[in-house]
C-alpha cells in the first residue's frame, strides 16, 4: 500500500503534526480579543493535466491569466483573506495531475484543510478522474476534516461542453460537495470558489470553537443530518 512508503513519516507523525498545527492557533485565541486571529489553511488543487489548476490559482492570487506573465513558477501561492473578524491565510498547493503520479499524490494532500477537484467541462475523462480523486480523499480523511469543492473549469469553451452542468451538480449534491463552474481565462467565478472555501473553513472552525474539543463520534452524525449547501449562502454575504 502507498502508506508503507519509506519516504513517508510514520503515521504517528501525521497525527502529531496536526496536533501541532492546531495548537499553533490556540494561543492566539486564548490571548483575548477575537478580532485578531490568523488561521493557516492548506488548500490542494487536484485535477488532470491541463484542466487549468494552476491557471485557476494564478487568476485568483494575481488576477491574471497564465499565458502572459513574468512570474517564474506558479505552483505554490499564498493569499490572505479577511472574513468578518478573522484573517485567514490560504496556502494553495498545485499538484502534478498526470496519471502516473496518482500513486504518490497522497503525499500532497497530507494535512490539507481543503481540496479543489478541478475538471475540464469539455473533457468527460477529467470529470471521471475527479471522481477518482474524491474516492481517494474519502479514504484518507473523515468527511468533516476536509472541505472538498468540485470545480468545472473552462466555461469559456461552453460550446464544446461534454460534462452537463446538471450531471455535475447532481453528483456534487449526492456527495455533499461544494460545486461551481468557473473560467480562469475569462475570470468567471474564480474568486467565488476560493471565498466559498474560506467561508466553509471558517464555519467549521466556529463550530469547533465552543466545544473546544473535536468529538469524533459526532462527526459522522453531523454529516448525515445536514447535507445542505452552506457555501452558496456564505459567498454571497
Amino acid at each position, binding site marked *: 500500500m502507498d502508506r508503507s*512508503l*519509506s*519516504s*513517508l*513519516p*510514520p503515521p*504517528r*507523525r501525521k497525527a*502529531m*503534526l496536526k496536533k*501541532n*498545527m492546531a495548537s*499553533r492557533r490556540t*494561543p*492566539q485565541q*486564548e*490571548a*483575548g*480579543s477575537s*478580532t*485578531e486571529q490568523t488561521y*493557516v489553511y*492548506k488548500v490542494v*488543487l487536484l485535477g488532470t493535466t*491541463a484542466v487549468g*489548476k*494552476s491557471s485557476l490559482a494564478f487568476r485568483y492570487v494575481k488576477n491574471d491569466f*497564465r*499565458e502572459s*506573465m513574468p*512570474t*517564474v*513558477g*506558479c*505552483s*505554490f501561492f499564498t*493569499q*490572505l*483573506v*479577511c*472574513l*468578518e*473578524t478573522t*484573517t485567514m491565510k490560504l*496556502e494553495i*498547493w*498545485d499538484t*502534478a*495531475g*498526470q496519471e*502516473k*503520479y496518482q*500513486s*504518490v*499524490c497522497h*503525499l*500532497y494532500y*497530507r494535512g490539507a484543510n481543503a481540496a479543489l477537484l478541478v475538471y475540464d467541462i469539455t473533457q468527460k475523462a477529467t470529470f471521471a478522474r475527479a471522481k477518482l480523486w474524491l474516492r481517494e480523499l474519502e479514504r484518507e480523511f473523515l468527511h468533516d476534516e476536509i472541505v472538498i469543492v468540485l470545480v468545472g473549469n473552462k466555461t469559456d469553451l461552453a460550446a464544446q461542453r461534454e460534462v452537463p452542468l446538471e450531471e455535475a451538480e447532481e453528483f456534487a449534491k449526492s456527495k455533499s460537495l461544494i460545486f461551481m463552474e468557473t473560467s480562469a481565462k475569462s475570470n468567471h467565478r474564480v*474568486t467565488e470558489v476560493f*471565498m466559498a472555501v474560506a467561508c466553509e473553513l471558517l464555519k467549521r472552525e466556529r463550530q469547533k470553537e465552543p466545544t473546544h474539543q473535536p468529538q469524533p463520534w459526532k462527526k459522522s452524525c453531523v454529516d448525515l443530518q445536514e447535507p445542505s449547501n452552506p457555501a452558496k449562502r456564505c459567498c454571497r454575504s
Partner: protein
Amino acid sequence: QEEMSLKSERRGIHVDQSELLCKKGCGYYGNPAWQGFCSKCWREEYHKARQKQIQEDWELAERIVLFASTCSSSVDYHLKARNQWFSISSTFRSSDYLGFNFRLQREEEEAYASSQNTQGAQSLTFSKFEEKKTNEKTRKVTTVKKFFSASSRTGAKKAEIQEAKAPSPSINRQVSIETDRASKEFIEFLKTYHKTGQDIYKQCKMFLEAMHRKRELSIEEQSECAQDFYQNVAEKLQTRWKARPFHHISKANIKLLCCGPSPHRSMNSVDLRHVSSPGMGFYLSVSPEKVEKVMDQIEKYIMTRLYKYVFCPETTDDEKKDLVVQKRIRALHWVTPQMLCVPVNEEIPEVSDMVVKAITDIIEMDSKRVPRDKLACITQCSKHIFNAIKITKNEPASADDFLPTLIYIVLKGNPPRLQSNIQYITRFCNPSRLMTGEDGYYFTNLCCAVAFIEKLDAQSLNLSQEDFDRYMSGQTSPKKQESENWSSDTCLGVKQMYKNLDLLSQLNERQERIVSEAKKLERDLIDWTDGITKEVQDIVEKFPLEIKPKNQSLAAIDSENVENDKLPPPLQPQVYAG
C-alpha cells in the same frame, strides 16, 4: 555396521574434539564467531586488543592534529591529510579492528564536511562524490561492526563507552568549530531579546541536556521530544509576547481593538495589520513572523548540536534505505528526459546551466546540518528548476511540469543519503515549517519524487515491460539505440566530444590537403627544375659553342706566360768602356 556409520559421520563433519575447544585451552568450548575462543577468553582478548587500539588511536589523532596545524591552507591540508589517512589506515586494515577503521573513516568524513565549507564551490562536487564513496565504505563497515558488537556485547560496549569518553581530538576540533559558531551566533541573536532571550537560552540548554540523557531512546521518541520542545517554546513565546503589551496599553486601546470590524477591512484585503493605526502598533510585535524567526534560530542552535547523534542513527535502517535508493537511481541511469516528459530542453545553454545549478543544490542538501538549511537547499533547487522550465517553455511552470523535472534532477544528481535527509528533516524540523509554507511545499514534492522513483515501472516511462527490463538489467541502453538516430542529443559531454571529433576530422582533412599540396609543390618544383634544365640543354644544343680563332689569340694574351721562352731575354746591365 555401527562402526561404518560412525566413520561416515566422521568423514562428513571432520571435526576433531580439540578443534572445538577454546584456543586458549581453558577447557571450555570455543566458537568460530569468537575466533575460536570461548566467550570469556574472547572478551578478555578483545578487550585487551581494544585497549591497545584506543591507545594507538589517541597517538594517531594527536599526530593528525599536529600535522593539521602545520598545513596552512585548508585545501592543502585536506589533500595531504587524505593521503596520510590512507597510508595510515592501510596499515590498520590488516588488523581486524573494524570498529576502529570505521571511526577512521568517520573522522575522514567529518574532516571533509568541515573543509567543504572553506573550500570553493569548484571542489564541491568532487568532494561530494568522494563523500558518497566513503559513505558507502563506512556503511559496509558498520554492518560488520553491528554484527561484531552484537556477538560480544559487553566487551564492545565497555570499549565504546571509553571511546565516547575520550573521542579523538580531531573530531572534537572539527565539530566544535561549527557548534561554537552556532552558539555564538545564537547568543548574539538572543541578546536583542533581553530577558526573554536568557529564558530561551536556559530552556535550550535544558533541552539539550535532556536529549543527551535520552540518547539511548529510539529515534522516534527523540523526535517526539524535539517536536514537543518546539511546540512548547513557540507557545510560550506567543503567550509571553502577547501578554506583555497588554500591561502597557490603556483601556481605550483595548476598546478600540474590541469594537467591531474596522472600516478598512474588506474582503481579500492584504495584511491590514501591517498598516494599522498607532493604537494597534503593539500588535505588530506579536506577529507570527517574529516567533518564527526566534524558532528558526532555536532550531539552528539545537540541531547543530544534535546533528551528530540524530542524523542517520545506527538504531534505524536509514542507511540501508539510503543504499537502496542510491542503487535504484544508479540502475535508472538510462532514463531520458523524453521518457519522463520533462519540459526542459538542455540544449539551450542557459537551461543546462540551470539544471546543473539545481543538481548542485540538491546535492548540497546533505552537507547542511540544520533541517531548515536543508529545506532551503531544496527550495533553491526548485527555483532553478522553475527557471529552467520557464526558459524552455516561455511560460511559468505549473506542478504538472515541475514534478517530472524534479524527478529528473534527482535521478541525474543522485543526492547522497537522500532517505536519511528526508527522515531527518521530518523528524527534527520545526513542524510549522514543514507542513506549511513554500519550503514545506517543495519538500513534499521531493518526497513525491523519491516515492515515485522507488516504484517507477515500465508504464510510468511509457515503455514496454521488455524494454524496461532490458534497460534495468543493463543489457542495452536506450541511448545506444537512439544514438543511431540522433547522435548528439544525449548529453553535453558527448555532444562536446562529437564536436571535438568533428573538429579533429576537419583538421585531419586539412592536414592531408596540406601534405598533398606540399607534395604537389615538390613535384612542381622538380618538374620546373627539370624543365629549366631541359630548356637550357635545348638551347645549348640549338646554339652549340663556336670557338673563333681570333678570340683564341686574344685570349692568349691574358694567359700566363704563354710562349714565355719566345720572348727576348731581359735586359742586362751593360758596362761601357771605362
